[in-house]
């Protein structure tokens, strides 16, 4: 597959976006949103990571197989965390109330 050359202008826009997202996540963390704090922080992190992966790492311009590989890695980590948490989150179930 012929190599795709991403213009530096694109890289610059992505960098600015990343820095803006960083400032945002920092600022937002000072606002108390309860459980949503963690959700928002992780969501912004995913957004930043996606920008780095798709543009800086050329995933967007690579063979579909590379995207599958990257997605598989994330998915497998998801399996590890999800099934492990299925233990911790359900340990208290079924206990008689005090």
């Amino acid at each position, binding site marked *: 597959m012929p190599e795709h*050359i991403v213009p530096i202008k694109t890289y*610059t826009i992505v*960098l600015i976006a990343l820095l803006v997202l960083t400032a945002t996540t*920092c600022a937002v963390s000072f606002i108390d949103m309860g459980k949503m704090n963690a959700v928002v*922080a992780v969501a912004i992190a995913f957004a*930043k990571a996606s920008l*780095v992966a798709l543009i800086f*790492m050329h995933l967007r311009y690579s063979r579909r197989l590379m995207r599958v590989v990257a997605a598989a890695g994330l998915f497998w980590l998801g399996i590890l965390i999800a099934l*492990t948490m299925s233990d*911790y989150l359900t340990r208290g179930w079924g206990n008689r109330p005090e």
Partner: protein
Amino acid sequence: MAETSVADRHTHGAARAHQFDDAEQQRDAVTMGMWVFLVTEIMFFGGLFTAYVVYRTLYPAAFAVASLALDITLGTLNTAVLLVSSFTMAVAVFGSQTGRRRMLVGGLALTIALGIVFLAIKVYEYYQKYVEHHIPGPSFAFPAPYTQPAKMYFTLYFAMTGLHAAHMIVGCGLLGVLIVMAWRGRFTPEYHSPVELSGLYWHFVDIIWIFLYPLLYLVGRHLE
């Protein structure tokens, strides 16, 4: 039997290993190889991320309070440093793709410099933790009632940022080798896979930090 001709090996600096049929197959293979390696790194860090998720779920208050002990200015600054270093790395790759040797060498040099800045800030942060008795060990001290879970938080902090820093050091070393090769003109638009692949590695280490930053530094800011 497919022979690699002298022309193959030396034309435009393109080097083709004998097991591959053509340069495209080699490029495909090494790119996929690096991505699969990065997946193994996702799983390697993943064990620590899993431990983090478990313990933060078990001790939310302690994690929030303990995270306040980290310096958010330095953490945010370091995040910006790494993001810019990813940019300079991408520029270096651009330089290698388009045959601009100065851009390639300059980009690599800036990336290494920013990497060193990151590590220096990290060392300073570790020193801060040492002074404040937040390094898990015999001299660990943290106000009750969060003492023990905070120790867990800092254990994870040092394990995760330490593993990340080790990868940064390897990355800087890798780029150091590359910059010497680039200076000597080893890379051309036809052959620059090592630059691209090192770029992939560097960006990946940046992505790890993109997750470490909110998970370690931003947990309890809303309590301040």
